[in-house]
């Protein structure tokens, strides 16, 4: 029996493809639908079969630290810098950005659509104690939300503040169910099918810009990672084809992401 099991396991292990690259991405990237445009183009141009692991930024960084993925594409600059500084990654490359938006019930009891800044909008929600759903999962979106709260000197808590510890879509479902405010990235919001009574109420404050960066996992820490492929993918992601596809990706006529990678260094 043990022999059979061993044979079986080794068969499965050898099935892994040679040119496959495991990339941990955030739920907001996956939910935007951009992956379905980029992955076929990547396979066509470079022959790399990118396998996406869709997790929160916190878990993506953990997967990278453990060497379980070959590269990560996340959006939380401070955590990314710490990741690279600790030697887990071989450099952070900015690829593109989208923006966060504040979603809430259509009748907008806290009147945040009239606010001047994101901080003022959150302050209005806190003062009214209107229900607010927080991701609460240490994701990039959650970290952004926490930084916004601390930026206006409010430590949110109480019945109205509801951390759900779930991905973007699940959190939006919760907000939709209870008619709550929530911070979401624009892409996930536009792609979200269960909008219910929710509406986009506030956007455009530069503090809400959301920078995505790509980090290959360091082969020094984990010799098993496909570092060559990760570098090849980095070249593609910063190249003209990626720019064309990212800038050209729209939902309902709205451009979701803006490509802002520096041109790849020659050689």
């Amino acid at each position, binding site marked *: 029996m043990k022999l059979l099991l061993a044979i*079986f396991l080794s068969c499965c*292990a050898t099935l892994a493809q040679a040119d496959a690259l495991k990339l941990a991405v955030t739920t907001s990237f996956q939910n935007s639908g951009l992956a379905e445009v980029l992955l076929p183009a990547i396979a066509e141009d470079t022959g790399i079969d990118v396998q996406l692991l869709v997790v929160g930024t916190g878990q993506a960084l953990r997967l990278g630290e453990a060497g*379980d993925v070959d590269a990560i594409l996340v959006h939380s600059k401070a955590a990314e810098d710490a990741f690279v500084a600790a030697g887990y990654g071989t450099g952070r490359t900015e690829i593109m950005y989208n923006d966060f938006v504040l979603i809430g019930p259509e009748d907008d009891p806290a009147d945040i659509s009239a606010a001047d800044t994101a901080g003022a909008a959150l302050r209005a929600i806190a003062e009214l104690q209107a229900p607010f759903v927080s991701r609460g999962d240490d994701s990039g979106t959650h970290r952004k939300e926490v930084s916004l709260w601390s930026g206006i000197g409010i430590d949110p808590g109480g019945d109205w503040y509801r951390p759900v510890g779930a991905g*973007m879509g699940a959190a939006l479902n919760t907000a939709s169910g209870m008619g709550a405010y929530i911070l979401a990235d624009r892409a996930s919001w536009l792609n979200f099918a269960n909008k219910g009574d929710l509406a986009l109420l506030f956007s455009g404050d530069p503090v809400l810009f959301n920078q995505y960066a790509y980090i290959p996992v360091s082969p020094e820490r984990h010799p098993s*990672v496909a570092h060559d492929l990760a570098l090849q993918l980095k070249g593609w992601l910063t190249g003209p084809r990626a720019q064309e596809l990212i800038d050209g990706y729209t939902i309902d006529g709205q451009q979701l992401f803006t490509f802002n990678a520096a041109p790849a260094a020659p050689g």
Partner: protein
Amino acid sequence: MGDIWAGIAAAFRLIITADADLVEISLRSLQVTLSALVIACAIALPLGTFLAIQRFRYRRTVIAVLNALMGLPPVVVGLIVYILLSRSGPFGVLGLLFTPTAMIIAQVIIITPLIASVTHQAMRDLWAEYHDLLISLNTGKLQRVGTLILDGRRSLLTAALAGFGRAIGEVGAIMIVGGNIEHQTRVLTTAIALETGRGDFALALGLGFVLIALALAVNLATHYLGRTESEGRW
């Protein structure tokens, strides 16, 4: 209520058009679960039978632990298997994380106690009946286990189907160790979780109905092939 009708419609659309992705993830669901079931049965059926016929010092403790393990939280099993198979874990060199094999390992751990417990219950009753006969024939341990498994196969089928049911509908563990990678480790349950996250309830429900239909089909096929409930009592 509208969502449920939309879900049923989505399920029909997926099945009638034989959607390529649906076929792929359904087959992977079956492949993972049936592999796990075969391995778990190979361990649990002899183990459960052995516990029924053999008396030893900590037998009661073993049985109690086995019963308690029936309620193993899948998400905890997933996390432990993840840590073991991670590149920085003890079995990292095998490169098994985020493969169907990892999902099979997690499911084997989840369903083995369940199958062993149900087996033990059924075999205990059968053993009471066969005890004198098998002792008087001067049979060995292996022969007794073999005879009981053969003659109790109908109860064991129930045990196996219970294991199948728990494994095919499981999502917590295989999401962690499989990673829900498209074309690699995506199965019906993780696809449902994904579509729910996207707010596409119709598609999620549609996949859910396909999953239920699949479980029903496997159960019916097993009963039909085994001609349960139609003859004899074995």
